[in-house]
């Protein structure tokens, strides 16, 4: 877990490119998935502690994906990033286990700050 790995899920390839470049540039190792199903497939093989999930995905949506991930891995810290805020209530996202919620267009510095915060939190938990 010292390896700072992030899983990013979004159905838009260019957005995955963007997040990959940003997080890689900040020293994280990034894996991407274009759907909830693909993300779960990846998650079955390797665990991720910090995730950025688009909510409006084809097939299973990001809220249900978050529920599944938290069930399998209660310590995971998932963030929601959505372009359609009114479709998903903040309270539903918190209930599903999201740590925080960003609306698109989100500022990269906010996303980087969120990632940094998540890894700090994980490090603190580990020291317990």
């Amino acid at each position, binding site marked *: 877990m010292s390896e700072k790995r992030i899983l990013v899920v979004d159905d838009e390839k260019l957005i995955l490119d963007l997040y990959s470049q*940003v997080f890689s540039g900040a020293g994280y190792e990034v894996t991407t998935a274009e759907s909830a199903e693909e993300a779960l497939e990846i998650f079955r093989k390797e665990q991720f502690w910090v995730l950025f999930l688009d909510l409006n995905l084809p097939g299973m949506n990001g809220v249900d994906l978050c529920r599944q991930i938290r069930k399998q891995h209660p310590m995971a810290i998932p963030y929601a990033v959505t*372009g359609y805020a009114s479709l998903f209530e903040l309270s539903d996202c918190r209930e599903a286990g999201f740590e925080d919620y960003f609306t698109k*267009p989100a500022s990269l510095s906010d996303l980087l700050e969120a990632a940094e915060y998540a890894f700090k939190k994980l490090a603190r938990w580990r020291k317990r």
Partner: protein
Amino acid sequence: MNTNMKILIAEDDMTSRAMLQAVLAKWGYDVSAASDGEQAWAALQEPTPPGLAVLDWEMPGLDGAELCRRLRAQERKEPLYLILLTSRGAPEDIVRGLEAGADDYIAKPYDNAELKARVDVGRRMLMLQNEMREREKLQGVLEMAGAVCHELNQPLQIVSGFSEMLLLDADAGDKNSETLKTIKEGIDRIGELTRRIMKITRYQAKPYLKGRIVDIHQASE
């Protein structure tokens, strides 16, 4: 409230027509009159037709019941409330009149209090129908706005994100960095707008050129 509401009267008897016209005008309605069914039909095809019509059943040519039937067969933009006026007061006549498409029925001889009460009911029904239509329209517009914003936010994230990245790499004071900053500010403003549009919950318009447009800032407060 009823000062501007338009009412059409169709009555072939001149005396009854004049009396009806006078009393409805006295109650504040904007009254127009037709002396037969064809004239009434034409008046109800105008661009801004009356919302309520009082139609005499017995008229030469196109009678009141047939007029109701034809009007109901039409696809109309605005709701239309129809009251049939007739000396036929038997229950089966009332049924036939309502089945022809009338909303209400007044048997002659009637007194003015009854006429007023029935016209008032019609006005209330029209107001409710119009309110419902407005609400449905607003709902449709808001759903459309939400969908458009969502679609815009995706590419907006791409443009805003990559320009933020370029900006982080650029040297401060560089000419390109200033240009990039301006671009980023413009994008941020669009982002702020889509955020506001998605928060719109009510109809609030402001004058714009010759027409009106939704006041995004007021309507999303």
